[in-house]
């Protein structure tokens, strides 16, 4: 019986020990699971933060250019400074107050602390580039570290996360500078693409396109982001509009024989041969070709049968 009792005692002990280990293991597993889940939440919300801080950083660049009348030297550098520091050229940007990416990191870290975790996110690089004439992508590489306060577990990883932002609705920086902040035009995609002229409507649509300063994509034009640097080269993400000469000439007058295309007009570049359209005073269009050197602007806007 003594043997039985001894066996019972040993069995009970082993069972108790095993249960304690399992409990402990379960706690650790639960903790790791919580941290892992939190990390997933941070991942998801980081996209949100990139979008918001990125969106505002674009506004911040526009605001700075409009207020100073000076283009930025580097769109990427200016964007990163706003995104990570809330400043541009060392000056505070009002739209970035409490809206920088590090501000978000602080707030998320407060959440982490409540859960007994320490979160660190250090931004390595932030880049902004086009993925489409109408979309810019904010791409961020950051080093992320999450640890339990009791050192139960920790994660360290480098993450590359991006978020896309539509450029529709943002200001065209060229107007801010070339009209001394007097005329504001926002990127607004044309509704007449492929239908600028027709036998039925004649030139009604293209005239409305010009009157409303709508934008169309054309690879012979610079992209939206290039406008922040006052660059005029062709881009595969190029977009352009026609300036209303009567509207802008009080602020920026060019010779009559200057194309109405914004990238050419702002430079008062008269080196292009321009054509007129009948009964359309002031309007001039050049036939600069696209990025690939194949299609010209007159064809892009379906004006071949209307120019004189």
């Amino acid at each position: 019986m003594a043997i039985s009792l001894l066996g019972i005692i040993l069995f009970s002990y082993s069972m108790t020990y095993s249960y304690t280990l399992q409990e402990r293991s379960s706690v650790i597993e639960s903790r790791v699971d919580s941290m892992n889940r939190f990390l997933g939440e941070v991942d998801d919300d980081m996209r949100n933060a990139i979008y918001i801080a990125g969106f505002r950083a674009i506004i911040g660049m526009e605001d700075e250019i409009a207020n100073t009348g000076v283009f930025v030297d580097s769109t990427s550098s200016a964007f990163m400074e706003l995104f990570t520091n809330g400043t541009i050229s060392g000056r505070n940007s009002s739209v970035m107050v409490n809206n920088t990416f590090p501000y978000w990191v602080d707030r998320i870290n407060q959440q982490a602390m409540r859960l007994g975790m320490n979160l660190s996110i250090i931004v390595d690089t932030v880049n902004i580039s086009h993925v489409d004439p109408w979309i810019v992508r904010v791409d961020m590489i950051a080093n992320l570290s999450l640890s339990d306060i009791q050192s139960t577990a920790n994660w360290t990883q480098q993450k590359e996360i991006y978020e896309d932002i539509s450029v529709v609705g943002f200001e065209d920086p060229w107007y801010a500078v070339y009209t001394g902040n007097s005329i504001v035009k926002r990127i607004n995609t044309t509704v007449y693409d492929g239908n600028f002229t027709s036998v039925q409507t004649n030139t009604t649509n293209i005239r409305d396109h010009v009157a409303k300063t709508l934008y169309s994509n054309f690879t012979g034009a610079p992209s939206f982001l290039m406008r922040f640097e006052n660059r005029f080269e062709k881009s595969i993400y190029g977009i352009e509009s026609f300036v209303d000469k009567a509207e802008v000439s009080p602020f920026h007058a060019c010779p009559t024989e200057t194309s109405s295309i914004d990238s050419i007009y702002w430079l008062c570049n008269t080196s292009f041969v321009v054509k007129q359209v009948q009964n359309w005073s002031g309007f001039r269009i050049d036939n600069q070709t696209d990025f690939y050197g194949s299609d010209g602007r007159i064809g892009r806007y379906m004006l071949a049968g209307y120019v004189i």
Partner: protein
Amino acid sequence: MTLKDILGMDDKKALFFTVDALIASLIMIAGLILITSSYISEQPRSLINHMSQDLLNVLAEQKVHEANNSFIQDLVNNGSITDVNNSILVQLGEFWAGNQLVLANQFISNVSQGILDEIFGYSIAIDNETIFSEATPVKNSLVSSKKIISGIQKSKPVKGFVAKARATSVQKITNQIVSFSPEGSGWDGSSTSKAYGYITKWFNITPGIKINNATLYLSFHIEDGGSDWTVVNINNGTCNITRNSLGMTEEGYFGSRNVTACLKNGSNNFFVTLWNDDYNAHLHPGMYLAINYNTTEDVSYIASEHRERIYFDNIRSVEANNDGSGVWALMPFHVPAGATNVSATLRLNLQDVNDLKDRYLVGWSYQYRDAWDFRIYVNSDTVFYQRNATSYDDIDDCLSYSAACGSNYNWTGSFNITGAVVTGTNIVSVYVNNYGDTVGGDGVTSIYSNPVSDPANSSYLELNYSLTPSLPYSVVEIRQLKSFGGTPNPTKNVNFSFPPEAVAISSVYTHIAEQYSYITRVYGDDAYVPANLVFESPAPRAVPTDVVIPNNFLDVSELARNYIRIAETSGNDVRQESSVDYGFYLPSSVGYGQVFATLSEANADAISRLQSVMGSFVNVSTVELDNTSMSDVPSLWGPAVIEVRVWN
């Protein structure tokens, strides 16, 4: 021998051990059952855990447009839902942030229906505020899952508006200065045969402005005795200032008159009559008109190309008693630092110039010099141009009562003086039959000018230059006037600061007021003692009323104090009526501000900020706004913590 014998046990003991073994076995079995049952109880909790996480994931991943039912469609149609690409959770968060709790409850109730089995109860809360909860009581386990969403916060706009504003027209209070520079003159004559000097100045007051106050500072050298005459006639007799009304005690006079009621919108003129019994009568530095006025004006760019035509006053010197006539005038003009492509042309229309040759007596020195018809000086004591006489009449002929003078002629011509132009204040001096304190003219010698009715034939200086604007956008210029104050002294200082609203300096002038002048120096600086010499008379008595202080010697910041010093080297006093006329720019626009829930709030904020940057100098009630706004601007509110609880 039995077992009992061997072990030494009796039957009772055997029974005890048997029962003991049985009890032990029961304990073991019971323990095993308990242990097993305890593990089994964990399984439902794990299931609930998955349920809560799954529910959270579904709500986070599912888009509003994917929850296709009539209730959602109604919300889209009535504008409660503006972005059908939002996830269910984000949309729920937007309703919560907008304090639409009833709608949030209905929305989440609708879209979460049927996701969980009926045996489970669940609730959804944001930042510990319950949005939806099923009435099912918690019977057993309750598991919570959370999700953080940035950009959402209670009572904060999820996507809002930012606005900026630009004034296109403003009503402002500012000052305008109309200066008379030293010029003359009326020569000798007598009380019975007066030799007058007549000066006519035309100037324009912008139509539509409201003059609050106009003060005419008078500074001249005229006869203080004898019979009375009208010295200043404003706007053809609208107001007259007589010599006797001045209360003169000596020939050099300085005083002021309120002439507000004498002025009118449009073209105005001052007709000044100068006379001296035994010397020449002329204007001294410090004669100017200061107009304080309200005006409504369109906001405009700072021009980069400057083209300015500055007309001479019409100056006539009338001979009497064959004592001769002669005119002279100082014409100051200013070229700002940084100006490029500077060009300056002087055009003169001189009338009744006496053709003289011979010599003239220099002042009281009893020394004679060769005479000339007219001379021009530009920023120097060295002659820029001199027209020599062609006849052989003796200058003294004109000064005698019997001899004939040389014949008179009119002369019109232009000079390119660009090469002699300097940055800062420039002075062109023109002398016609006027040789220091001697004259040789005959009849009515004059520098002709009539910018109102005969501008093309007038005498003027045309100045052109390019200057990169200090600010690249439209601005409102305000000009303020501050007197030096105190008492007359050969050296006088003034300090001034720009207001906090000023974003750049437009231009700063000092107006020199002296009863008698000789060589005057002006200094400007943003520190005391002002050390930068900005002007020195190029010749004795070449003291203009206006001297420009280059902007680079001044500091626009509100905390900075700027200093100007006027020093008269002769020991004569600089008067306390000397003033500084400082101009600065106010911004006419404000950039984006905070994010607001509505466009009207964003616009109101932009207007308020615009009012703030323009300060009290501009009447904001008349600002015309051309504001633009940007919608759908997100903010890094929160993060909000969305909690899903599931129980059974």
